């Protein structure tokens, strides 16, 4: 989740069909510049190189989010069913079905960048890890939480604040963070 503004300038994004490192591109209506989804910065146009501020967000199930935030509001798109995406129904190694779109959870994980240091926590590793993990990232204490039933993981700082993070596929994460460390549960046991 990004704040769609650079300085005081508010931006309106649309979806562009091209890709950068196999990741999505957006285009802003105000300048016509292209923006990389995972990079979170303009890659062309007058704002090239400008980063968007990341707003820490949690991707999870509706049940878990509602339990944590009973007063939440929900974005609505009246009259549209949308495209149901299910992570849970596709066992690792099996072929995807057409409907609903399904993903292979074995390649999914949590990506964090703290103090300039990137680390990826594959769900398959967190499955056998004692969570919450306590570790140091970018010189700062970080805890990593994992809720497989809620299909989510997230990082918190020492004060319990949600850290900017992304649930991503390991290959996609490494394409944008080639120096990222990869968490391995066995090395820590």
């Amino acid at each position, binding site marked *: *989740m*990004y*704040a*769609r503004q650079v300085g005081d300038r*508010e*931006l*309106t*994004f*649309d*979806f*562009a*069909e*091209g*890709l*950068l*490192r*196999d990741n*999505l*591109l*957006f*285009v802003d209506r105000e300048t*016509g510049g*292209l923006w990389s*989804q995972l990079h979170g910065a303009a*890659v*062309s146009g007058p704002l090239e190189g400008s980063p*968007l501020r990341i*707003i820490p*967000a*949690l*991707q*999870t*199930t*509706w*049940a878990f*989010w*509602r339990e944590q*935030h*009973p*007063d*939440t*509001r*929900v*974005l*609505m*798109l*009246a009259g*549209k*069913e*949308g*495209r*149901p*995406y*299910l992570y849970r129904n596709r066992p690792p190694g099996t072929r995807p*079905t*057409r*409907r609903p*779109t399904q993903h292979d959870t074995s390649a999914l994980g949590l990506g964090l960048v703290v103090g300039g240091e990137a680390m990826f926590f594959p769900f398959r590793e967190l499955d056998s890890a004692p969570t919450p993990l306590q570790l140091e990232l970018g010189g700062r204490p970080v805890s990593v939480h994992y809720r497989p039933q809620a*299909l989510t993981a997230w990082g918190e700082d020492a004060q319990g604040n*949600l850290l900017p993070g992304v649930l991503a596929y390991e290959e996609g994460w490494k394409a944008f963070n080639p120096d990222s460390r990869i968490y391995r549960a066995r090395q820590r046991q």
Partner: protein
Amino acid sequence: MKIPRNFRVLASLVVAAALVAAAGYLLWGPRSSAEEPQGEPASAGRTVRGRMQARPGGPMEDVEVAVHEVPTDLPTVPAEEAPLEDDDLVLGVVVDAQAVAFPIRYLAMFEVVDSRVGETPVAPTW
């Protein structure tokens, strides 16, 4: 009557195709609008040119690609009015003490939407 071999092969292919189509219908049901690309159609010829990949795994090249407009400032409703199942995925955020859930099933239609939480303009993407 002897049926030409070519005709038998052709007939077999037609029957096989029909079986595959029938199996697909039984497994997945009729195609509905929910599975069609639902983002707004490419906006009346609106395009953007730049150096990018035109297809997954493709080389970087100077190309012109279509732009799809996405919704701006869609409404929100209280949790009890949300037509979501427990296992629906959402992207949740708390900004200015206001919690908002962005259903992935909607984000998946557009990849990004232009929204606002409290006073903050946000771009939830997935």
